[in-house]
């Protein structure tokens, strides 16, 4: 029996890893073709990409810097997927999290670090939460589509924080559109200097473990997943669908908000006017999809995308390859995964089943 279980497990892993790996290789191949089209040597370009990401302790540290937010935005989107929602708003929630942390990190003075650090993270989480709950409530109560709502919330976050940083929270004397620098008591400890890697990475890893336990080992997590698998069946089973949708969006928003807080507390130390989206929220979609919407997969895919984004800087500066190449490769991966049958089952079977259940229940009513 133990042997059977082992066999099943490995078979399962093989299946789960197959599509992401094929997607990865195809995207690398496409990237190589584009580099050749530019008239450069793909081998040299990819060597710079690799060295830039992992070639030294400092580069590895910088890769962790790029990985940390992706771990959390990927996790945020995975959590929403598991409840059958598509939270495209991680970007806006991330931005709000940065702003919340920059504010709380700078207004309190004289606090001990053990209090100020979690307080600042909490502010980021709450800000992201708020930005997730609003579309969550509209979705759960009124059935408005969360995709459009969260996209709109992204733009509102971008311009709203733009207003805050230019007017209300502008650091004196106001030469730079940025908030005041947060106090030392809210800053995270740097690792591997001179890279900017910091303890925020461990916070993200702890969150991954906590979300795994929450989703697969607790009653609340089970309810969220049940709603994601089949809303109607969940409702029949007495699960409060409205509550779970709002909860999932709140948690999803909170995770993306925490990603923003860690960015401020560990890297930037302030909120700089953005002018455009950071991309971490959108990249989180690709991270989550490539990672099979599972915490273990997300560690791998976030590290992969973190390495690509970090290595691309060296590839651009030394080998002269535009770093936008990485974005094209990510898009190829998402294209490939969108057609993946396994994922499709996961995301859309609930829809199909829901319809069947509806038809079934209608039939029963007629029979009565």
């Amino acid at each position, binding site marked *: 029996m133990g042997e059977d279980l082992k066999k099943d497990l490995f078979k399962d892993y093989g299946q789960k890893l197959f599509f992401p790996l094929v997607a990865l290789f195809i995207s690398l191949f496409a990237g190589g073709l*584009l580099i050749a*089209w*530019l008239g450069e040597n793909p081998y040299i370009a990819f060597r710079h990409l690799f060295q830039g990401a992992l070639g030294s302790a400092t580069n590895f540290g910088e890769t962790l810097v790029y990985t940390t937010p992706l771990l959390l935005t990927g996790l945020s989107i995975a959590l929403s997927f598991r409840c059958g929602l*598509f939270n*495209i708003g991680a970007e806006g929630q991330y931005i709000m999290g940065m702003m919340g942390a920059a504010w709380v990190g700078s207004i309190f003075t004289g606090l001990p670090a053990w209090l100020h650090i979690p307080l600042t993270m909490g502010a980021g989480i709450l800000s992201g939460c708020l930005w997730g709950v609003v579309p969550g409530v*509209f979705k759960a109560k*009124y*059935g*408005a*589509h969360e*995709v*459009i*709502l969260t*996209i*709109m*919330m992204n*733009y*509102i976050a971008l*311009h*709203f924080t*733009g*207003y805050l940083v*230019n*007017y209300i929270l502008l650091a004196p004397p106001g030469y730079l559109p940025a908030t005041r620098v947060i106090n030392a008591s809210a800053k995270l400890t740097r690792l591997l200097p001179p890279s900017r890697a910091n303890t925020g990475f461990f916070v993200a890893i702890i969150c991954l473990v906590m979300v795994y336990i929450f989703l697969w080992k607790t009653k609340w997590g089970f309810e969220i997943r049940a709603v994601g698998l089949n809303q109607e069946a969940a409702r029949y089973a007495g699960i409060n669908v409205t509550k779970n949708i709002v909860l999932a969006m709140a948690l999803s928003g909170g995770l993306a908000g925490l990603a923003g807080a860690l960015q401020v507390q560990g890297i930037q130390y302030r909120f700089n006017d953005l002018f*455009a989206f950071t991309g971490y929220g*959108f990249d989180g*979609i*690709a991270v989550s*999809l490539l990672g099979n919407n599972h915490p273990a997969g997300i560690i791998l895919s976030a590290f992969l995308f973190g390495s690509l984004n970090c290595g691309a800087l060296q590839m651009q500066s030394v080998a002269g390859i*535009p770093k*936008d*190449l*990485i*974005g*094209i490769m*990510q*898009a*190829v991966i*998402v*294209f490939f*995964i*969108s*057609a993946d049958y396994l*994922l*499709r089952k996961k*995301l*859309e079977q609930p*829809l*199909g089943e829901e*319809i069947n259940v509806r038809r079934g229940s209608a039939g029963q009513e007629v029979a009565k």
Partner: protein
Amino acid sequence: MELAFAINIIAFVIASTFRAATPLIFASLGGVFSERSGVVNIGLEGIMLFGAFFGMLGSYFTHNPWFGVFLGVLVGGLIALIHAFLSVDLKANQVVSGVAINLLATSATAFLLQKVFHTTGQSSSVPKVKDWQIPFLKEIPFLGEAIGKLNPLVYLAVGLVFLSSYFLFKTTYGLRLRAVGENPEAAETVGISVRKIRYGSVVVSGFLGGLGGVYLSLGQMDLFREYMSAGKGFIALAATIAGKWNPKGAFLACILFGFAEAMEGQFQLLGMNIPKHFLHMLPYVLTILLILGLVGRSVAPAASGIPYEGRK
């Protein structure tokens, strides 16, 4: 004197409203076609960006802006073809496929910009589509000032609204298209090819999205700027929903968004001290309010977003 000034401002606002609404009108008509046939097309944002880039490129290479328009529309359709293949044949998750198109558009256009112009940020200036003066519109008192001399693409957008409405609701093809979006099984039973109709509709939505993008680079401006679509594809999609998947309704929603954008400039002209950030936020807040206001009253095509698995 003051009256003349006020009339001038009103005429100017009307003209600006139409100009700002035009890219949204094209893309939201694209949304109507795609969603009416049962395919969600979140990739319209990226399709617009591709349209804007290749529109500029066509005009850059041939010095003929109309060739740019043609190229932008064509590429829009080609990108939509990918979406159609993924969502109709491979039965992919349509939102994920759309997200991939948007990711691709942002990076690919920036990449191509560097390949062709060896620069980042924006392209050099190219010949743009010039405004047309329409004699009989110009004659209309008061309104003539506002709508008598606009970009031909603006007139085209308004024309397409009525054409689309006629096509969807008065022709057999329109009826078939709507049938496929409402109940693909029933449509197939009476001999309509769900696959062909969905392919066609998604590609048409790509043409229209591309046209919206072309207007950005060759109508409003005379160059391509990285990420110049700036969320307009998403707003257009919201207009599709707010307009109840109806060309004329979507048109009105776009005019409302266009008006919000036109007022942005006016507030500043009139010296009102409203931070520009709030004005930038306005269309997005309006969208959410519109969608909430319509909840319960606007019903999506029943099969929208669901891949058709064939008759069971």
